[in-house]
């Protein structure tokens, strides 16, 4: 069971039902459950999409693509069935928010999938959870079964004449499967190797039919938008960045945890105020603000608003909402090595720059960290990473490259301090075992 925290600055929308027993359907109904779906039915497809557009909701999976716009790409007429796919693969290091949604508010996810299906004219929705989330799969399965038992899903929902089925589906361990096209491959029973785009999933997706793929948090926001109105949601955040976000604050912090804060909340305040600052007498060294795939920020760069556009301007990305806080006991080379080891392990191996690049970076960093580094390794790492950028079929290549470039650029001295056979001067941690 994941632990809940709270802070006065929180604005609880998606987390509104956390800790309130909303997994129980009767309780969920007391909390206005399934009203959003009924309202959506009466609104009709176009009005739903317009409301979501007005909300400025942007994808919480990482890329921040406007949700209403994504839905509007699905063709109205289609010879093949259309689908909605909820991405609950949550595997980006530093991210543990979808877990709380599934655990505390499973029906909100179901409602979100239903409303998306109504908006695009899909008759089936799939909720994909990573294989490790077995207890959450059980919670979701029960929620789906309960909703079927009441007739909320299935044939002729709420007397609308619309049939809508929802199914849960389990993965079996693979980060890359979180990438939308690999996710579809996995759901179809294959290896999680991405597909070439275009065509985009909205046109050719699951089993060749038009498919909307959204992150679990994105979909769980939708019922609130339908009930509260797009404008209300938009106003919670900053221009073009509507609503709130579940930020996962991790590292040696006084009060780490998942906090729901308005889009655009100041990053520095998040660290020093919301999560109480550093613990154990540590000092701040850097912040990785959006999951391990994004560029690091130095302590003098964190006085920024946490929304997609501001983070981009600050030279990083809002990503998955995983705010990883590094303290002065962490060696940046060691950190880089662990990050690279992850991407090397998870690369599906399809494109050469990603497969070979991550492997070379891992080998170089392993040798480098153990005192066998030579000066040209530093530029070589950057060179390797820069040559992966934009040269791969899916964004995992970029995700592996961008952080490394930023570490070398911003912490070059720490790399240099490892040269001349010196053992790591920053920590005495055990050598990493290779996965």
């Amino acid at each position, binding site marked *: 069971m994941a632990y809940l925290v709270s802070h006065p600055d929180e604005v609880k929308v998606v987390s509104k039902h956390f800790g309130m027993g909303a997994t129980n359907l009767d309780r969920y109904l007391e909390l206005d459950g399934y009203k959003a779906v009924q309202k959506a039915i009466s609104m009709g497809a176009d009005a739903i999409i317009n409301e979501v557009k007005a909300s400025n909701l942007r994808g919480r999976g990482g890329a921040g693509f406007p949700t209403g716009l994504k839905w509007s790409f699905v063709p109205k007429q289609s010879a093949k069935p259309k689908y909605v796919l909820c991405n609950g693969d949550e595997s980006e290091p530093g991210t543990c928010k979808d877990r709380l949604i599934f655990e505390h508010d499973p029906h909100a996810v179901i409602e979100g999938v239903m409303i998306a299906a109504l908006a695009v004219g899909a008759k089936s929705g799939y909720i994909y959870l990573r294989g*490790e989330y077995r207890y959450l799969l059980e919670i979701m399965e029960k929620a789906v079964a309960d909703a079927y038992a009441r007739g909320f899903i299935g044939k002729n929902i709420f007397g609308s004449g619309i049939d809508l089925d929802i199914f849960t589906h389990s993965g079996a361990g693979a980060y890359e499967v979180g990438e939308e096209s690999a996710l579809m491959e996995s759901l179809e029973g294959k290896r999680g190797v991405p597909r070439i785009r275009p065509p985009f999933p909205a046109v050719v997706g699951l089993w060749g039919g038009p498919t909307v793929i959204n992150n679990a948090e994105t979909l769980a926001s939708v019922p609130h938008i339908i009930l509260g109105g797009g404008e209300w949601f938009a106003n919670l955040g900053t221009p073009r960045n509507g609503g709130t976000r579940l930020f996962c*604050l991790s590292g040696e912090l006084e009060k780490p945890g998942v906090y729901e804060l308005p889009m655009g909340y100041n990053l520095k305040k998040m660290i020093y105020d919301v999560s109480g600052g550093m613990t154990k007498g540590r000092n701040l060294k850097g912040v990785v603000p959006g999951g391990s795939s994004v560029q690091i920020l130095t302590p003098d760069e964190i006085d920024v608003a946490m929304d997609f556009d501001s983070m981009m301007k600050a030279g990083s990305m809002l990503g998955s909402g995983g705010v990883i806080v590094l303290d002065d006991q962490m060696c940046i080379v060691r950190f880089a090595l662990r990050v690279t080891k992850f991407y090397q392990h998870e690369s599906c191996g399809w494109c050469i720059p990603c497969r070979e690049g991550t492997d070379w970076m891992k080998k170089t960093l392993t040798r480098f960290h153990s005192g066998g580094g030579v000066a040209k390794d530093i530029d070589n790492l950057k060179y390797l990473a820069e040559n992966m950028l934009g040269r791969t079929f899916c964004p995992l290549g970029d995700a592996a490259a961008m952080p490394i470039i930023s570490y070398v650029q911003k912490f070059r001295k720490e790399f240099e301090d490892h040269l001349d056979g010196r053992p790591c001067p920053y920590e005495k941690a055990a050598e990493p075992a290779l996965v």
Partner: protein
Amino acid sequence: MKFSDQLEQRFSTMVTHYPTKRSVLVPMLLYIQDEVGALTDETIHEIAQRTDLSDLEVRNVISYYSMLRTRPVGKYNLQVCTNVSCLLRGADDIFEHCKKKLGIGNKESTPDGLFHVEEVECIGACCWAPALMMNYEFHENLTPAKIDELIDGLKKKEEQ
């Protein structure tokens, strides 16, 4: 080969959820493994037949997913996350402690077949780091003492 009643039921319901049979593959393989302990030649052949695939195609899928395996591991599988959020909070020491306590290395099992330990990637417990999963059970905010308690508890349970 016959599936257990439980697996049989899983399969027959799931197969109605998708337009193609092979779509049941990934979750079904995991359910089989949970029950049988590993994806044996026999089970692979059985699921291949049922999904109109060759055994090789099924093996090809199995080899992609980190949770799927063709050989059994210890009854209690300690999967220790050493990824960044956990690393920042001492995951290396936690991992070392697990290995030392059990007297085994990464991806090894104890001779009695009870315990297995492996280093894994982020398990979605970053805010409650360091963390591990024992089979499907999350154990968070770990300390060496908590690990001792967990392992000793399981050993005691087995002795009874």
